[in-house]
């Protein structure tokens, strides 16, 4: 029979500590192999008092202790599909200009519009969108792009717009999407991103 945690050769209270760590890091049942009766009893005691069911079977090198966390947790493990992407990846989109790339300005602004539209069509959406420098124009003067950004907000994205930049361009009163933010918040958001796309 297989085991998840090998506690052979570990002296008290290490086997119990292993179980304690496993309960906080895993969901669902697991099996620990211990090589002495004291560890078997300690681990069983700890698991029982932590609200788990415990089953002990003999093993040629000791005992296999199955720890089954409270029923609720076991159910959750069966229902979560394995292919689901981890929900905690923070995706950030940084827009530092009202045009994409360098070159012809008319092309650049058209591309910016097309890009934001494409964002609304793609299922893989950013969690956070940041606008700085001339990028703030896209959520103020430009109604079309502002509407796309509002769509992203409606789908759950947070939108931060640099206050200094809005003041510089005199556009604060025209904010159509997102909320006014500052350098500290923006810097913090950028550095805590798991995936960062920058235009």
């Amino acid at each position, binding site marked *: 029979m297989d085991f998840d945690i090998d506690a052979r050769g570990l*002296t*008290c*209270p*290490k086997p*119990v*500590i292993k179980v304690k760590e496993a309960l906080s890091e895993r969901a669902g049942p697991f099996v620990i192999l211990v090589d*002495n*009766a*004291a*560890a078997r*009893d*300690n*681990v*069983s*005691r*700890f*698991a029982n*008092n932590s609200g788990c069911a415990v089953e002990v079977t003999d093993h040629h090198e000791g005992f296999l202790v199955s720890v089954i966390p409270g029923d609720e947790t076991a159910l959750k493990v069966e229902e979560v599909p394995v292919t689901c992407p981890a929900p905690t990846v923070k995706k950030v989109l940084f827009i530092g200009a009202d045009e994409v790339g360098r070159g012809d300005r008319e092309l650049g602004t058209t591309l910016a519009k097309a890009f934001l539209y494409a964002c609304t069509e793609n299922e893989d959406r950013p969690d956070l969108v940041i606008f700085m420098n001339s990028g703030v124009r896209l959520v103020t003067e430009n109604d079309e792009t502002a509407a796309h950004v509002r769509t992203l907000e409606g789908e759950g994205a947070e939108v931060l717009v640099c206050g200094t930049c809005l003041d510089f361009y005199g556009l604060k009163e025209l904010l159509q999407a997102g909320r006014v933010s500052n350098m500290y918040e923006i810097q913090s958001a950028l550095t805590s991103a798991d995936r960062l796309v920058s235009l």
Partner: protein
Amino acid sequence: MDDPYTFGQIAAANALSDVYAMGGKPLTAMNLVAFPCALGLDVLKRILLGGVDKVHEAGAAVVGGHTIEDREPKYGLAVTGIVRPSEMTTVGGARPGDSLVLTKPLGTGILATALKGELIDEEAMAEAIESMRTLNREAAEALKRYDVSACTDVTGFGLIGHLYDMFRASDVSFELRSSEVPLFDGVLDMASMGMMPAGLYRNRDFVGEVARKADGVGTDTFDVLFDPQTSGGLLASVRGSDAGRLVAELRDRGCAGACEIGKVIEARAKGIMVT
């Protein structure tokens, strides 16, 4: 145990305990040291200082010793004492009707395991550490003034393990009231978290069927009574009618955890009953 001096004090108090359990007075002690030089001789010095201070406190002298190099530090003492034969107390002699009195709380093994497992810090163990450093001298002097039939100190075999010694040395049985047995703070909690040292289970297996628990007694409560103690208190059987006054005097002398924990009963019960 982080502090070398305290480690030395506890080791000495532990070694001197036997002499007090017999109603005697310590005279001399020899150090037994195993030490890894890499730890630094300063550490060793503080351990030995802790030991020598405690021996002096007991009115005895350290007269020599033996030191070897080893991977793990170990420190103990071989103690010699003196006792009047008429005042000597041993494990044998408990009489039905006597009361069992314990002079220090239990739980040093479990707490040490919990400390190792980082479930508690040294501050949480402060009461237990102070208790381990305390000589059983005051307790022994109090006992001399009463009609004590048998006495032992509670160390590595746990309370029931040492009570088992008394059981084998006399033709009696014992009743232990688990709710009266003093424990350090947090011991039952740590017991329920599985912080039992391996020695606890060895003690329980060794005593086996002789110790039995009543239905209402919890497993944790029962098992704690087998916890191996370091420098534990004295366990004495004293004339039943004296027990109350003895406990009061023990507490007056600083044995704050002293309690009457059970009774000596007729042999036919054939064992140690934990209620």
